[in-house]
């Protein structure tokens, strides 16, 4: 617990120095996208890793946040410090409504019904032209932070997304190590035992779900301002697939895992870009390889190695004694 906290603090401090050390715009862009995905993956991890249900509809909250921020900015001209928190709040409200329906279901039913909600929102975004401008999307989302102060360079955006990531990790950390978080883990491990000692599975799952939706909404709001364009593709399954791969590659149910997954996948996708058309084909193969050979993600792999290391000396000592 303290190790995890210290690693997270060290990572955040190291990341805060990055824009002063690196001036390459391309690397900064990659770092921004990695942090954006880190927030998304952490928010999905709250549902997948701590509630233990597999949500495929997390793009619903990303998209809601992105459209909220884009609409507030283009229609009302609001600056970022208003739109991004509001994007999170609107997503949290959606999370509450969708969670109230979907969290009654489990297993494959939960998977399909969350996916259905994301698809319904995508189709609405694609067809409700009066508000969302349909497939053309909302372009020209403003980039002003307070009033007329605009963020002009990548370093500024990096610090903003770092701030959002810090908030996301702080809230996740507080949730995971609170009574509610421990209750959620108890439900994940054994629903009936948890119920028998008075844990309300629906209530704890709801807290994690709404918090996840809030964080995904923040990420979506940031995305709208950074890219300066929002279209129905924010609801697409491709985003969802990327998020899942990050969470499971890093290791679900840990706070550091999704961060590591986000960084690795962002860099890997960029690196594979050199392969041109082969890129996504290889990506698919890599995903399959991860499931088959790294079933608990990187953090699971590291934990396993540490256990083996710890077990070795005692094993050797036992051998010597028998000799």
């Amino acid at each position, binding site marked *: 617990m303290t190790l995890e906290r210290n690693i997270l603090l060290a990572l955040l401090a190291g990341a805060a120095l990055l824009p002063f050390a690196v001036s390459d715009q391309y690397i900064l862009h990659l770092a921004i996208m990695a942090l954006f995905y880190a927030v998304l993956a952490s928010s999905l991890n709250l549902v997948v890793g701590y509630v233990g249900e597999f949500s495929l509809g997390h793009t619903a909250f990303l998209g809601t946040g992105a459209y909220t921020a884009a609409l507030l900015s283009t229609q009302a001209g609001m600056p970022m410090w208003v739109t991004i928190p509001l994007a999170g709040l609107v997503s949290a409200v959606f999370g509450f409504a969708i969670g109230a329906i979907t969290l009654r279901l*489990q297993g494959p039913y939960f998977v399909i019904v969350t996916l*259905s909600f994301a698809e*319904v929102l995508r189709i609405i975004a694609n067809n409700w032209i009066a508000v969302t401008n349909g497939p053309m999307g909302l372009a020209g989302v403003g980039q002003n932070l307070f009033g007329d102060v605009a963020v002009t360079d990548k370093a500024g955006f990096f610090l903003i997304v770092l701030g959002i990531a810090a908030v996301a990790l702080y809230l996740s950390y507080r949730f995971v190590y609170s009574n509610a978080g421990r209750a959620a883990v108890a439900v994940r491990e054994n629903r009936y035992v948890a119920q028998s000692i008075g844990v309300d599975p629906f209530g704890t799952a709801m807290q994690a779900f709404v918090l996840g939706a809030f964080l995904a909404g923040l990420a979506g709001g940031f995305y709208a301002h950074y890219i300066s364009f929002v279209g129905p593709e924010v609801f697409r399954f491709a985003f969802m697939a990327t998020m899942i791969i990050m969470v499971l590659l890093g290791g679900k149910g840990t706070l550091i895992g999704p961060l590591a997954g986000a960084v690795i996948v962002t860099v890997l996708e960029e690196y594979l870009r050199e392969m041109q058309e082969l890129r996504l084909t290889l990506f698919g193969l890599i*995903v399959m390889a991860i499931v088959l050979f790294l079933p608990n993600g990187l953090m699971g792999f590291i934990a396993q190695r540490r256990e083996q290391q710890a077990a070795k000396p005692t094993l050797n000592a036992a051998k010597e004694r028998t000799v």
Partner: protein
Amino acid sequence: MDLFPQFLANGLVMGVFYALSALGLTLIFGLMRVVNFAHGEFYMLGGVSGWFVTNYLGLDFFSGLIVVAAFMAAVGWLVDRFLIERVRGQGEEPGILLTIGLSIFLVNGTLLLVGPAPMKVAGAVAEGPLFFGPIAVTKLRLLAVAVGIALIVGAHLLIRRTRLGAAMRATFQDPMAASLAGIRTGHVYAATFALGCTLAALSGMLLASIYSAQASVGGLISLKSFVVVILGGMGSFAGAIAGGLLLGVAEAMWGGYVSMGMVDVIGFVLVILILLFRPQGLFSIRTERA
């Protein structure tokens, strides 16, 4: 009101293909419990390989259909033996991720090999409408529907009347007891997966003879097949057929009377309502709750 019978006929035609594809998924998802996101890609591969055998190898439609069925059964068998088998019994998550990876691989591999252009499977009969009172249906559609229905009946007979079908039913009732009775359950799982994969592929090839096959079509088909399986009830054969027809007709009515753009939303709204009010599906015999 005058167009109503025509919409109904169009909906039923589409429904037969939804049903055929969903029958494949009800075996894989409903019985084997693999949340198979590559199902639409099997459908797509059926269309693309159908195009390949009819246009490049110059086979006629029916021998092409047999070649595609054999090929896709082999693909399904291999996918199960080499991929799905390794995550069996570990819950849904590894299966979901594995099939997402597989579908990314299949879509982009296909795009790489044949490109994004639509591909037309050479049909068995000439285009040309037939009129039944107020309804117009092309001969091609009528033939494809007839073949689709024949395949559904064939699959039903396979499951109900053959030794393999009996082994399947035994395995999905109780895998432990089945293997104690000498059934090689590993083979049964692979055969079930191969059958599901083949049904999706043949649905894809039949529909590609009416419209055309495209490498990127799979995602939506996967989702619609899931919708149909949940509408009909997990693992229910009759339910998948009824659910498919229901979805086809509902989409045709909505497209005809309300709006064409939102047509794909119907399935998802239906599935949300079903899971809220009747989670065991419309036609499920077992009262398995979500």
